[in-house]
C-alpha cells in the first residue's frame, strides 16, 4: 500500500466530490434537517429523553442517502473517461478504491456529527445511557461503512450514476427487509436465524441496544472487505 499516493488521492476525493461540489452540502443539510425533524417529532410523542428513536431511523434513512453520494464515485470517472488518467498514474487500484471509500466515510461521519446537538438536548432533558449512545454511534459508523462499500461497488459496475444509485438501493432494501420481523416470522426458524444474521440491521440493532458482539464486528468488517475487494476486481475487469 502506497500511503503517499493514498493521501493525495484522499485529499483529491474529499475536495473534488464534497467540498467544491454542491452535492456534499446538499447531502449534509438535508440529512441533518430530516434527522432532527424526525427526532423532535418522536421526542414529544414518547416523552422520553432517548436517542433510540433516532438510531432506529438510520438504517432506512441512510439507505437512500448514502447511495446518492457513492453513485458518482466510479460511474462518473468511467463516463467522463477520467478513470483512464487515474489508472495510469503511479498508483494502484487498491489505493484508488480505498481513497474513494475513506473520503466518503469521513464525509458521511462528518454529516453524522450534525446530530450531536440532539445528544446535548437529550443530556439536558434527562439522564440517557451514555454507553448505549456511544455503542450506537459506533454501530452507525459501521453501518455507513457497509453502505458505502456496497455503493462504491455498484458505482464501479456502470457508467451510469442512476443505475448505480438504483442498484445500491435495491440491494440494500432487500437486505433491510430480510432483517425485518414481519419477513422473518413467515420463514422456518432455522432459515429465519440464518437470514437475519445476513441482514445488516440485525447486527446494527445489537449496537443500539448497548452491546458490541464480536460476531457483529466480524460481520461488518467482512462485508466492507468483501465489497471493497469486489470493487478492485471490477476495476481490473476492464480488460475483458
Amino acid at each position, binding site marked *: 500500500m502506497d500511503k503517499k*499516493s493514498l493521501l493525495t488521492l484522499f485529499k483529491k476525493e474529499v475536495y473534488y466530490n464534497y467540498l467544491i461540489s454542491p452535492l456534499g452540502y446538499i447531502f449534509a443539510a438535508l440529512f441533518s434537517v430530516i434527522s432532527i425533524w424526525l427526532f423532535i417529532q418522536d421526542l414529544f410523542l414518547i416523552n422520553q429523553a432517548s436517542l433510540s428513536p433516532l438510531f432506529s431511523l438510520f438504517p432506512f434513512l441512510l439507505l437512500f442517502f448514502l447511495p446518492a453520494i457513492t453513485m458518482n464515485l466510479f460511474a462518473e470517472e468511467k463516463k467522463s473517461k477520467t478513470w483512464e488518467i487515474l489508472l495510469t498514474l503511479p498508483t494502484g487500484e487498491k489505493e484508488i478504491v480505498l481513497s474513494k471509500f475513506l473520503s466518503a466515510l469521513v464525509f458521511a461521519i462528518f454529516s453524522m456529527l450534525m446530530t450531536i446537538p440532539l445528544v446535548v438536548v437529550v443530556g439536558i432533558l434527562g439522564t440517557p445511557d451514555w454507553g448505549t449512545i456511544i455503542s450506537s454511534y459506533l454501530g452507525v459508523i459501521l453501518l455507513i461503512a457497509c453502505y458505502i462499500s456496497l455503493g462504491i461497488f455498484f458505482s464501479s459496475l456502470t457508467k451510469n450514476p442512476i443505475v448505480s444509485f438504483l442498484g445500491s438501493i435495491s440491494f440494500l432494501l432487500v437486505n433491510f427487509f430480510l432483517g425485518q420481523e414481519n419477513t422473518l416470522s413467515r420463514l422456518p426458524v432455522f432459515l429465519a436465524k440464518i437470514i437475519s444474521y445476513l441482514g445488516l440491521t440485525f447486527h446494527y440493532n445489537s449496537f443500539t441496544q448497548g452491546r458490541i458482539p464480536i460476531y457483529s464486528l466480524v460481520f461488518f468488517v467482512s462485508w466492507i472487505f468483501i465489497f471493497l475487494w469486489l470493487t478492485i476486481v471490477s476495476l481490473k475487469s476492464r*480488460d475483458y
Partner: protein
Amino acid sequence: MLQVRNLTKKFGSITAVNKISFEAKVGEVVGFLGPNGAGKTTTMRLVTGFLTPNEGKITISGLPPREAHHLVGYLPEDNPLYYQFTPLEYLRFIGEMNRLSQTRLEKRLDYVIRNFNIGQVLSQTIETLSRGFRQRVGLAATLIHDPKLVLMDEPTNGLDPNQQLEIRKIIKKLAKDKAVILSTHFLAEAKSVCDRVIIIHHGNIAAEEKLTNLKQKRQSLVKLFSKLTKE
C-alpha cells in the same frame, strides 16, 4: 526507451491487436496511423498499462508498464479532465501523484504554464475553458512530471486549424529529449510532425516506414495508407 514484442490483445472473440512489435527511441516522433477501430487506442492503452495484453511483452526503460507510470505521460482520446478543478488544482494533483517534490513541482508548474500559455486561465474551472485551452491543460498535465515517453491519442482531434498548428509545434519541440508516440487519422499531421509512421489495420502492423524513406522512394503517404487500409 520503449520496446513492444508480439503484443496481442483480445476482447472476447475479437482480436483488437494481433502480434505487433515496434520500438520508440528518445528523440523521435512515431505516428500510429489507421482507420477507426484499427487498434491504435488499444495499443496505447496496453503501453500505458491501462490494459494488460493476452500475449507479448512491453518494456519501458526496461520496466513493465505498470511499474513505469512515472516515466510515461499519457493524453487519452478525447482529453478527459476533471472539469470542476481549475487548471492549477488539476496540474498540482497530477504532479503530486507523480511524486514530484514541492520545489520540483513549483518549477515544473512554472514551466508548463509558460510553455502552454495557460497563465490567464489558471483560476477558472476547466469546464468553463474553450476546447483549445482544455487541450493545452491536458498536454500540460501529460508533461508535468517531465516523462521520457509521451503517448497522445489523437491530440488535435476537434481543434480548429490554428489550434492544430499550435499543438503540432509543441509536439515537435517535445521530441528533443523524449520518445513521442501519437495516433492520428490526419495524414497531413503525420507528415508534418512524425519521423516514422506505423500503419495499423485490423490490429496488425500493415507498414512501418520512416518518412525520409518514403520521400526518397517518392512514395506518397496518402497512397500507401489508402492502399493498405482499403476494405
